[in-house]
């Protein structure tokens, strides 16, 4: 045993394979980012530069938020080997309920309460409704073992019905000034800069702390310049983004909400047991089970989180659209799923990243937005978006085959 034929190296400087490995593992993500940039450049020239103007660039990110928030949870759902077809209608139901509370309920029951309180309560109600629905749905899928496809398909219809019941077929206004701030307003420019500064500091501090921790455990560190370069680049992107959107009116509130969610859920996916177990369950359910993982509990939690995110998405939807309608959220589930698939999430489970899904979401939005500016009829927008989705996955398959 001591006669070392082993060639396990943790992270030696001389061994380039570690770095190469990281590149290879993320090849798909890089290809996606490049595809997105290519799409931007294409539209930039097709629209005489309007497309990448600060105003449109800002709008691009806001347009994607509602479905992108769903995609964040959808990645975990699909990675775990499930699917959720109910997200669009659940968010729609939440938006309708929130609109109802905003328009009628508080006026009837708390007529003297300050707007700030009722708005906050509306948001809370929205998040609660989404989460509770997630609890019920997660329980049915995880503990009653009804396949997620069936459960969520049923939910889609149920929620559609609930929306009709709640609205009585009418549109409910949700355009109260304070409530509109959530999805329509901007973060003050100075605050934007301060946030960027804080993010940069956090990035550097956590980089140094990470190095220190690795050192403590005797793990060979990547060269300092590599980490510095990486962190500086990331900080650069943050400042660049804030600069560009500040040329227009600043970071939009919903985009800020999305970013916070992405950060939290990426952390959950990578650095907690819940996340790790989810990937393991999707990768090999039996191996995960025999490794002592509580599969049911894990599945349940994921659907609860998905429900919560639908709550967030529904609140943003109500505030952005300004009213709750019977059509709210219809078809959004497919955008959310498509974004995940485009972003490299495997329908077979076990593989996928939230970052990838965000790029996927951005690509879909970039396409629709660009085609709109070019005045392409909406019929053709559908044709093109669909073709791009299928083509992207086909290209990915071809790439995997040649590997």
């Amino acid at each position, binding site marked *: *045993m001591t006669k*070392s*034929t*082993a*060639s*396990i*190296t*943790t*992270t030696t400087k001389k*061994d380039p*394979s*570690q770095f190469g*490995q*990281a590149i290879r*593992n993320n090849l798909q993500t890089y290809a996606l980012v490049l595809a997105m940039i290519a799409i931007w450049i294409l539209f930039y020239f097709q629209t005489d530069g309007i497309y990448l103007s600060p105003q449109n660039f800002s709008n691009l990110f806001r347009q994607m938020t509602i479905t992108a928030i769903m995609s964040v949870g959808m990645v975990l759902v699909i990675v775990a080997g499930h699917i959720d077809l109910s997200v669009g209608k659940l968010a729609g139901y939440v938006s309708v309920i929130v609109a109802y509370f905003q328009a009628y309920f508080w006026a009837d029951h708390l007529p003297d309460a300050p707007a700030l309180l009722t708005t906050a309560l509306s948001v809370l109600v929205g998040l609660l409704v989404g989460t509770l629905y997630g609890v019920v749905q997660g329980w049915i899928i995880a503990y009653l073992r009804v396949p997620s496809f069936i459960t969520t398909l049923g939910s889609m219809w149920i929620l559609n019905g609930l929306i009709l019941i709640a609205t009585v077929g009418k549109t409910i206004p949700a355009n109260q000034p304070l409530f509109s701030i959530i999805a329509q307003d901007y973060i003050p420019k100075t605050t934007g800069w301060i946030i960027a500064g804080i993010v940069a500091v956090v990035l550097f501090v956590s980089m140094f702390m*990470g190095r220190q*921790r*690795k050192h*403590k*455990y*005797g*793990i060979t560190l990547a060269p300092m310049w590599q980490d510095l370069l990486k962190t500086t680049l990331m900080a650069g992107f943050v400042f660049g983004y804030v600069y560009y959107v500040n040329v227009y009116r600043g970071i939009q509130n919903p985009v800020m909400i999305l970013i916070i969610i992405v950060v939290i859920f990426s952390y959950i996916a990578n*650095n*907690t*047991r819940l996340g*790790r*177990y989810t*990937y*393991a369950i999707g*990768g*090999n359910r*039996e*191996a*995960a*089970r*025999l*490794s*002592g*993982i*509580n599969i049911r509990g894990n599945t349940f939690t994921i659907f609860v989180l998905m429900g919560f995110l639908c709550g967030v998405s529904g609140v943003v939807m109500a505030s952005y659209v300004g009213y709750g309608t019977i059509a709210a959220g219809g078809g959004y589930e497919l955008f959310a799923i498509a974004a995940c698939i485009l972003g490299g999430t495997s329908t077979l489970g*076990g*593989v996928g990243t939230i970052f990838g899904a965000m790029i996927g979401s951005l690509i879909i939005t970039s396409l629709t937005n660009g085609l709109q500016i070019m005045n392409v009829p909406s019929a053709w927008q559908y044709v093109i978006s669909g073709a791009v989705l299928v083509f992207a996955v086909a290209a990915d398959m071809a790439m995997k085959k040649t590997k």
Partner: protein
Amino acid sequence: MEKDVILEFNNVTKKFPGITALDNITFSIRRGEIHGICGENGAGKSTLMKILAGVYPWGTYDGQILHNGQDLKLRSIHQAVGEGIAIVYQELTLVPSITVGENIYLGKEPVKAGIINWDKLYADSQDVLEKYHLDVKARSLVRHLGVGKMQMTEIAKALSENAKVLILDEPTSALSEAETDQLMEILRGLKKHGVTCIYISHKLEEFFKITDSITVLRDGKMIITEPTKGLSVEALVKHMVGREMKERFPKGNRKPGEVILEVEDLHAQNPLDSNDEIIRGVSFNLRRGEILGIAGLMGSGRTELVMTLFGEYGKITQGKIKMEGREIKIKSSNQAMLYGISMVPEDRKLHGLVAIQSILRNISLANLGRFSSWFRINDSAELKESTYYAKSISIKAPNLHAMAESLSGGNQQKVVIAKWLMSQPKVLIMDDPTRGIDVGTKYEIYKIMNDLAEKGIAIIMISSDLQEVLGMSDRIMVMCENQSVRTLNRSEATQEKIMALATGTESQPVLER
């Protein structure tokens, strides 16, 4: 003599990168005989048969195969079938949800104007079944058949294509004894119809019941081809293992300590079917620092037993499990791990490994609790510990971030072992730990096992390879029909004795037919 020969292998050599699987194989098979081919795992039996069945096409190997005196140049399995050579694989390849007849004619359904002629399909398949005395109904659903009848369906499928040479790759590995006898009867019937059978098996006794001549392969080389009459089990074993037998298993230097695990008269049933009793009385004890081998045929309840001990399968209806003197109830793998019981499962692809994840994540998977709070995994600690275990059993990989699926079978198995070592078990169950692994890595795994036992870990090892059981175990518990029959000491155990116990031929006289 020449006329009698149906197949002739001349200097057949097959090389894989880094390994010569077949080395100048030369022998011939006579028309209408049942020809046994035996050898250890990795001796080259399967490779040879795959060449004969067209899986490895002509040109990918050297040498020549004469079929009825003609040079056989197969390009595909399809062509082999056309030549009348068919193979019945070890793993059954039937579609369970359709009928026997449909399976027999799958892919070659009789059609008229593009419409399947069902009457003809069922009439023809029933004819084939009856002609060879296969006791299966063409209209039965395969799902409802037992393993033995499935095997018959496979054979009928091969025969429906007018196979003149039928290759049977370990056909009895999953059959009960009665079913085996039935199969033997069928093969004798085929012989009367002039079908030549090539019979591969690990159960040596079967060769003497059924074959006319036997070819022994060892490490890709042809050792002998002789009429069965002149051979004995002992001679066969000697030819199979050669002189290397002693070197195959590293010598351990261990002293078993006090009893750590006791199982008393354990009974358990299938959790999904209370009529299915999967364990019908198993008792044994296990000491610290000891390797207890569990021998038994496939289907004897070996895997069901350890899965039940690991809390993941059987519902215990009777009996006790005591760990360090205390009675314990294990309801899940998680709980088993808390008691210090870990298990390297039988099928590493299905149950052991998350193939699409890195080595690191596979090793740490069962042990994440140790370096994480509820909101954070300490990835540095994870990497450090995983590296320690990966190094301790010499996993060969560029680094721990490599995908598990990129490793060789042996190294994949080591990853699974590393995962379970990290859980620091007191009792380590290893279900067929060297299945499908090359000889060199097998030796390394044996050394790891000896090492662990010397450190005081109690190991339960299931194996289908009798020599492995004999070579590695301190004691051997033999199982037959979901019961523990007897536990033998290493000194008193022989292959024959184990086989007799495992097949139930020792305790009961063979029934007259």
